[in-house]
Structures are given as structure tokens and as C-alpha cells.
């Protein structure tokens, strides 16, 4: 009997570890393979023996794609993307913060409807908006500028941003603010001394999400930019899918991925928390 139970436990454990191994292989191996390709010499990759553990690690591909004047405008693209993403994130937080506070705390006429519209826009295909935006930006002479990207990204990200910040404000007990008011705080002081410090994680989360979403956006810069000068990092990647060595392509992909992955790992807890906050809604 005991023997049998133990055999069952062993069977169960091995089933779990087998499943874990399969999941690990499917989910993590492609990423590993990408990094592997980016640090191996071209001739090794072309050879037909399957090599999963690198016998030789080189950084030539990274050097090549980061060199100025490479056909993949990666260095410039990363700088542009950094600028655009930081601007967008700052702009979004600045606009979303008062909006979220108003929608959470003040009696704004039609606030329910506003929130409904904000959520439902995510069901709509992006191409629906990009055609007229393209026409408008060309009309205003704004096509091929960083400003056009910041404006469009902000429009796409703001609904999500307002929603994130509102969840954080909703979680604050109103009594805190009421107590402060009774103690003689002005509305400005209440926001500055009580609300802002308490929702700092929310602001950080909003900033991080806006940054990531701007960094990875592909379709908007594809349509709005022509000159290489303002090419973003994601767009640079696409140029690299044609006619470049596979190792350099992998290196460019790793460089595109790296900032997002780093941000995500650093803020893992916060990111998960924000995502799951949606489960209540």
C-alpha cells in the first residue's frame, strides 16, 4: 500500500517535471535561440549540425549593427525611440493624472459614458484611425516628425493610462482626503500632499506602460515616417529583415528587446499587479 502510494507520487512528480520541461522548451527556447544566433559566427550557424550550446561567443554582430552608417539605422533608431517613448510617457501621465482624478473623485457629467468609450476603443482596429491621421498630418506638414508620433501614441495610450491611474485612485480611501479638507487643506494641498504620494506606484506603472507601448509600436511609424533620420527602433528592425546577415538581424532584435525586457523584469511585480487589476472589472 505504502509502496503503491509512493509509486504514484513518483509518477506524479515525473509528469510535472516532464510538463515543465516541455513548457520551458517551447516558451524560452526561441528567445535563447535568438540570443545564441546573435553571438555566433555566421559559418557556424550555416553548418547543419544542431548546436545548442555555443562553442564560440563573438560580439561582432552587435558591433556591426551599432556602427554608424549601418543599413539598419539601429543606433539612431534607439535614440529616437528613447526620445519619443519618454516624451509620450511624460505627456500621457501629465494629461491622464488630472483626468483620472476627476473621473474618480469629482462629479463629471457623463463620466460613466466617458469610461465606457475609453475602454471600448481598444476593440477597434488601429488602421481605422491611421488613414485619416495620415491625411491630417500630411495636411499640417507634420508627417515625418517626432511630434506626430508622440501625439498619435498618446491618443492610443491615454485611455489605458487613465484607466490604470483611476484604479489606483479608486483604491485610496476618500476619508483621507475628507479628513485633510476638514483640517483645512486646500484642494491643491490635498492633491499634492496626500493623493500624489499615495498613488506614486500607479504613476510609475502608467509611465512604464506608456514607455513600453511606445517603444514597441510599429504600424504608426511605418506609416508616418519616411526619412531614416527619425526611424524608430522597431522600424529599424523591419529594415533589418531584408538582406542582412542573420546574426546581425538577431543582434538588432536583441537590442530592440533589451530595454523592454529590462524594464519588465525590474518592475515585474508592479506590471503583474496592474494587469491583474483588470480582473476585477
Amino acid at each position, binding site marked *: 500500500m505504502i509502496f503503491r502510494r509512493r509509486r504514484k507520487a513518483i509518477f506524479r*512528480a515525473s509528469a*510535472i*517535471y516532464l*510538463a*515543465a520541461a516541455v513548457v520551458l522548451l517551447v*516558451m*524560452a*527556447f*526561441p*528567445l535563447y*535561440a*535568438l540570443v545564441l544566433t546573435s553571438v555566433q559566427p555566421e559559418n557556424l550557424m*550555416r553548418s*547543419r549540425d*544542431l548546436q545548442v550550446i555555443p562553442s564560440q561567443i563573438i560580439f561582432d554582430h552587435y558591433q556591426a549593427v551599432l556602427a554608424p552608417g549601418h543599413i539598419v539605422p539601429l543606433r539612431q533608431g534607439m535614440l529616437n525611440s528613447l526620445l519619443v517613448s519618454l516624451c509620450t510617457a511624460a505627456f500621457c501621465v501629465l494629461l491622464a493624472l*488630472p*483626468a483620472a482624478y*476627476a473621473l474618480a473623485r469629482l462629479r463629471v*457629467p457623463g463620466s460613466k459614458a*466617458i469610461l465606457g468609450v*475609453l475602454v471600448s*476603443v481598444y*476593440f*477597434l*482596429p*488601429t*488602421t*481605422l*484611425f*491611421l*488613414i*485619416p491621421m495620415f*491625411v491630417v498630418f500630411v495636411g499640417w506638414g507634420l508627417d515625418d516628425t517626432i511630434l506626430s508620433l508622440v*501625439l498619435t501614441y498618446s*491618443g492610443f495610450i*491615454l*485611455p489605458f493610462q*487613465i484607466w490604470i491611474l483611476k484604479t489606483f485612485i479608486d483604491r485610496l480611501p476618500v476619508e483621507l482626503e475628507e479628513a485633510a479638507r476638514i483640517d483645512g487643506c486646500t484642494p491643491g494641498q490635498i492633491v499634492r500632499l496626500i493623493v500624489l504620494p499615495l498613488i506614486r506606484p500607479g504613476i510609475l506603472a502608467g509611465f512604464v506602460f506608456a514607455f*513600453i507601448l511606445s*517603444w514597441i509600436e*510599429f504600424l504608426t511609424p*511605418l*506609416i508616418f515616417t519616411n526619412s531614416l533620420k527619425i526611424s524608430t527602433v*522597431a522600424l529599424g*528592425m*523591419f529594415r533589418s*529583415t531584408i538582406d542582412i546577415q*542573420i546574426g546581425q*538581424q538577431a543582434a538588432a*532584435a536583441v537590442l*530592440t*528587446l533589451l530595454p523592454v*525586457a529590462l*524594464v*519588465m*523584469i525590474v518592475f515585474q511585480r508592479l506590471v*503583474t499587479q496592474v*494587469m*491583474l487589476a483588470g*480582473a476585477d472589472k
Partner: protein
Amino acid sequence: MGNAPLPATVRALAGNQVETVSMKRRGEQMLGLLMAGPALLVVLGIYLYPAVFTLVLSFADYDLVRLSIKRFVGFANFSSLAGNPAFVQATLRTIYFGLLVSAVTTVLAFLIALLLDQKFYGRGLLRVFVVLPWAVPPVVAGVLWGQMFHADVGFVNAMLFQLGLIDSYRIWLGDAWTALHVIAIAEIWKAIPFMVLFFLAGLQSLPQQVFEAAAVDGATATERFRYILVPLMTPVAIPLMLIQFVWAMKAFDTIFVLTRGGPAGGTTTLNYFVYQEAFQSFNLGRASAAAYILLLVTLLTVAVFAFIRIYVDRKWRRA
């Protein structure tokens, strides 16, 4: 006595009070609108105005050089789309692609969540690796799977060849049918983490007593899975599947990177079709019409999902 008129002073005071309260409320409303205004303005500028503009365009012939509408053509854009077999195929393909991606993602994510819900050594590490693809930008996911399925240097060919499952290297992206599924794999791989997290949260909030009670009553593991776990998780799964479906309908980056809609248009979904019509053929009118058809297809499917959810809820309540 009770009906004695209030002294004039009291009435005046009360009236004043009422007035200040309503003024205060109006002030608050104004302040609220003022605070929400700039954000709403940007959102409306980027969403509502273009959405209306696109609707107008879908009935028009647009001159891209002069940036003006040449003339209105009624339903000509729509009928020309309906008569275009490439468009009809793209529509069907989009629905197939959306259903495939959302269904497979849901099933795999549920199984992975079940695994991560068990206690075993290295669970935390596995969780990190499962969540990681979520951080991968769609473009990079496209490049990454493009390299995995690369005809010459791809690991998929190498592995299958070593295992003896194929006798020569295959050109996966050269055939429309397999290429479409490579794109689906990229989308599924990218989408799994998000759903796993939600399923895990759902699993962890399940009442454990129910399972224990069922085990005491002699229900086998399969029975507990089939009659308790699956019904309890269905309300979690349906909205997730819906969100995933909508996302898959919008897939663009992976298609662009992997196949550019080819070979021979075989991996063109509606979203990609709109892009091609607008920015390669420069027919903004027809592109707009196609964009609205995509919206319509999406909304219809959402409606079907909502209907299923109501049906499941009702069935669940009756049981």
C-alpha cells in the same frame, strides 16, 4: 401649527444654502471637465475624428495629391470589395486566424496555468520564463520566429531533421498554409503569458473546499477536472478568449515581418489588407471601407461571444 409658514429669514437662508450647494456642484463639474478635458481632447482627436473621417472616406473617392475628396461614390467601395475574391478570402482567413489563435492560446495557457499552480521545485523560475515572451515586442517576435522557421539556419528544420521527422529542409514561409500557421505560432507564443497570469489568478481564488469535498466523495481527478474546474474557469476564459480574438484580428507586425501578406496574398488578413489598400495601392476610399468591414466582423464576433457568455451563465445558474 405644523403648517406655520417659516420665517422669511429662515427661508432666505435655506434658499441661499441650496443655491451655494448647487453652485458648488456646478463648480465641481466644471473643474472635473477642465481636468479631464485635455486628455479627452487628445483621445477624441486621435479616435473619434478619424473614425468619422474614415466612415466618410469609405463612401468617397479620395485624391491623395490634393488631399481632398474627389466625389462621393455611394456603396461603390464596398461593392468593389465584395466582388474582389482576394478580399473575401482575406475576410474568411482573418476569422479563421482569430479563432485559431484565441482557441489555442486559451487551451495552452490554461494547461500552463494548471502546471504553475502545482507545487514543484523551480516553479518560480519557470513562471519567469513563461511570462517573458510578453515583454517581447511584436516585431521581435516576428523576427524570432522567422529565424526559428528559417529554411536554411532555422532550429525547427534542424531539430525535425535530426529527429528524422522530415527528410529534407522545408521552406516553411514559402507555402501560404504553413506560413499562416507560423504567424499564428508567433502570435500564440506572444499571447500566452498574459492569459496564464489571469488563469493563475483565477485558479488561486478557487474555493479549495469544493475540491476536497469532491475528493472525499470519491470523485476521480478527471471528474474533478471535468465537472468542477472547467465549469468554474469558463467565466474567466470567455472574456480572455474574446480579448485575444480581438487582438489576433489586429495582428499586423508579425505578418509584416514574416511574410508581408504573401506568398501570393496567402497570409493577408483584413488588417493587413487595409494597410496594403491604403498605403501601397493608395486607394483610401476602398481601404476605409475595408477597415469598417473589419470593425463590423470584430463587433459581430464580440456579440456572438457575449451571447455565448449569457447562455453559459444561464445554464450554469440552472445547474
